[in-house]
């Protein structure tokens, strides 16, 4: 999508009947939603009738993202990468989070291979109500032997529903893999200046996305991409080469930035970017590699990789990586909020403690997990603070005594419990006086951090 396109430009191509079939009240509203990509063009049912063919086609082109969105895998297990529209998140938003692949290779012992694949399948870490996962399995052909590779690919594919990436410089090896999983749309790695024709041919034959690789040379990378395009290949991913050592890292970083700028500013080679932090392991087995791999992954997630390949399975290393990805792909204009209202933990009864918190997802899930780990039966009254945390909403007025009283009344908690005692977060102590005056509830100011709720309840709740 070119930068200057606004809702009006889109509106001009819509049916302009305000019929409401898309779920929006007006065509104009639908146009705005299209820019934010919260709706699809096809949601406007009149538009996909033959008589709007030209408009549909025009809009489709107009709305195509500057960085093409590429699908790896099939159907509901596919991973979307790219699809980005801006260089800086605050200019609009980032759309598809960096996909994370973990590598395996075809000379791994069977047990090791299977357990690594299952590790990827099962890996998840719950933060703020979101499940953070690994997305793709990258299979490297260490053997460079077509038969061995095919066997490995088939084993991996039997073990997982995750999309795959198959990696070799040799078209024969790649094709042996594609014969096994070609119908699952794996990402083919990689076409070069020397192999674009053969590997591009495989991408066409099996209808799979393909990586274009050039080692640090952006002109060569562009040439490979254009060669693939000239064959009719459409789903391309860029690998400008991941150098992770010394001054070479600076060049790699520069190439990532240049690629993203070219895509957005010049509509030049607008494809998703691949980074390979796993390359740190080329240096051997040192324990410090894991640290380094995390740092490289962080750089790439910050700027501008759409897919990264990791080697380390260490949880203490993956945790900061998936958390960073969650942060970078959270739009600060829309804090993640949870539904307000009364939540029950365990089997609370008329004597159970009543606690209060805000509906900022980070706050709510932190408190909820503390309560869950304690295993106490209680009520948690979640106040609608427009998705802001405790201290912030007290400072900004989204949480005050009025709001709290109102929430207590509307929640129905007064019918659930006999007592009139509520524990509020330590950081909202400022509202406790007013809250007591305006309601007939006794207010207990709890600890500042919800991790000590247990102690507090034990000592102060009787």
């Amino acid at each position, binding site marked *: 999508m070119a930068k200057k396109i606004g809702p009006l430009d889109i509106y001009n191509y819509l049916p302009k009947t305000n019929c409401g079939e898309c779920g929006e009240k007006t065509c104009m509203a639908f146009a705005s939603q299209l820019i934010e990509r919260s709706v699809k063009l096809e949601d406007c049912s009149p538009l996909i009738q033959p008589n709007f063919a030209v408009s549909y086609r025009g809009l489709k082109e107009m709305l195509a993202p500057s960085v093409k969105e590429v699908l790896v895998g099939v159907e509901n297990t596919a991973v979307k990468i790219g699809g980005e529209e801006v260089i800086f998140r605050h200019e609009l938003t980032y759309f598809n989070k960096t996909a994370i692949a973990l590598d395996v290779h075809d000379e791994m012992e069977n047990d090791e291979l299977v357990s690594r694949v299952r590790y990827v399948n099962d890996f998840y870490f719950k933060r703020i109500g979101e499940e953070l996962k690994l997305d793709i399995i990258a299979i490297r052909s260490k053997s460079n032997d077509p038969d061995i590779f095919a066997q490995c690919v088939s084993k991996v594919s039997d073990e997982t529903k995750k999309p795959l990436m198959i990696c070799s410089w040799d078209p024969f090896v790649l094709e042996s893999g594609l014969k096994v999983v070609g119908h699952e749309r794996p990402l083919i790695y990689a076409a070069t200046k020397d192999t674009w024709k053969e590997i591009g041919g495989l991408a066409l034959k099996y209808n799979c996305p393909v990586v274009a690789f050039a080692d640090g040379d952006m002109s060569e990378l562009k040439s490979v991409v254009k060669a693939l*395009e000239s064959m009719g290949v459409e789903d391309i991913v860029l690998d400008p080469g991941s150098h992770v050592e010394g001054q070479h890292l600076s060049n790699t970083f520069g190439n990532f930035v240049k690629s993203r700028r070219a895509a957005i500013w010049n509509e030049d080679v607008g494809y998703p970017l691949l980074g390979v932090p796993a390359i740190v392991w080329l240096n051997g087995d040192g324990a410090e590699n894991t640290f380094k791999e995390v740092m490289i992954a962080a750089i790439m997630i910050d700027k501008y990789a759409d897919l990264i390949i990791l080697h380390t399975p260490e949880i203490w290393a993956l945790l900061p990586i998936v958390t960073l990805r969650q942060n970078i792909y959270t739009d600060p204009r829309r804090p993640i909020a949870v539904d307000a209202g009364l939540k029950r933990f365990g089997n609370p009864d008329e004597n159970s403690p009543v606690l209060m918190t805000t509906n900022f997802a980070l706050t709510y899930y932190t408190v909820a997990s503390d309560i869950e780990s304690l295993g106490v039966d209680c009520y948690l009254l979640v106040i609608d603070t427009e998705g802001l945390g405790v201290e912030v909403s007290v400072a900004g007025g989204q949480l005050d005594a009025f709001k709290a009283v109102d929430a207590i009344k509307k929640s129905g908690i007064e019918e659930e419990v006999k007592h009139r005692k509520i524990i509020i977060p330590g950081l909202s102590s400022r509202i406790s006086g007013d809250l007591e005056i305006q309601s007939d509830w006794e207010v207990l100011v709890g600890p500042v951090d919800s991790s000590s709720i247990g102690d507090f309840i034990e000592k102060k709740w009787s």
Partner: protein
Amino acid sequence: MKNTLYLPEIIKMLEKVEEIELENIDMTAGELELIMSMISAIKGPSVKKAEYLDLDFNVPLANFPGEVLEVELGATKSNGGTRKNVIKVGGQKTLPFYNFESHNPNEPVIAYDVFDTNIHLAGPVRRHFEDVMDDPAEWAKRCVDKYGADAVTIHLISTDPTIKDTSAREAAKTVENVLQAVKVPIIIGGSGNTDKDPEVLEKAAEVSEGEHCLINSASMNMDYKRIAKACLDHGHVVLSWTSLDINDQKTLNKYLIDLGIKREDIIMDPTTAALGYGLEYSFSIMERIRLAALKGDKDLQMPMSSGTTNAWGAREAWMENPEWGDREKRGPLWEAVTALTLCLAGSDLFMMMNPTAMQLFKDTFRCLSGLKETVSLDIKDWIRMG
């Protein structure tokens, strides 16, 4: 059987196949005509020839009219101080590490945190300083002698009435001791108590006159005029601290300038929310501030500082939890990733705590600066590695 085809499908068909047969499709003659007329438009005039051409990639360069101010910390003998060196912060001409575009003169600066009282610190941090935590001067020395700190921050947190209520006079003594103990530039921090800090920082500024320290901090919800005056009177740099609000940051900077502070004597702290705890806010605010500076907004052209130590407030950094893996490694990474991310967003100065985190961060930014020479590996080998 009757079928209705919608446009997206028709277009897909047209794109994929050479010939189509439209059978059993409910369509008026007019519609059919329309579709036929689209075929040529969609399929294009003729198929391109598959070929490899040596093309040129035009490097997209930004032309930033503005640049970040360069702020000096510390004063050597020739400038009336007793520091052995001066540190330059900021001066950036483009975004961090965009070396292809312009050369940023100064690398990021890391300052080690030292506290004036034996506070509760996470295990992975405490370990390194356990035996010196009752003596801030020794603690500072440890940072410099053992870990090679370029700068040290002495946080006078015991002055907080709810901690020890240490008097301003006593706190100033601590500052003097630290200045004696180490010869690197120092940063002086209050306790964050908005009523007490003006008094504490005034005294501290007085006893460190001439050393060109960074005074941490002036904020809107305190009597920042007193802080500003102390910095003016005793020749210090002021840290202008706001909480994640770009307009507030502009406003406070202007106030400070109106009070007579030179633009080169201000560093901004737009607040660091840690990895997993609001980092997305700090990231965007810093990125926006840095872009504004490069685009020429004079009120935001000061270098930025990050209280990266906040990372240790995150549970994932300090908490023992077997499901999260080794805390000794996880904690330092939490701090290092917070630092690196905010560095890429534009922060220039980092107040940090864990030596491993600092080493990791430093190794990484030295590479990114292009200053660390090394041989190039054949990265194509990664497919066949161990």
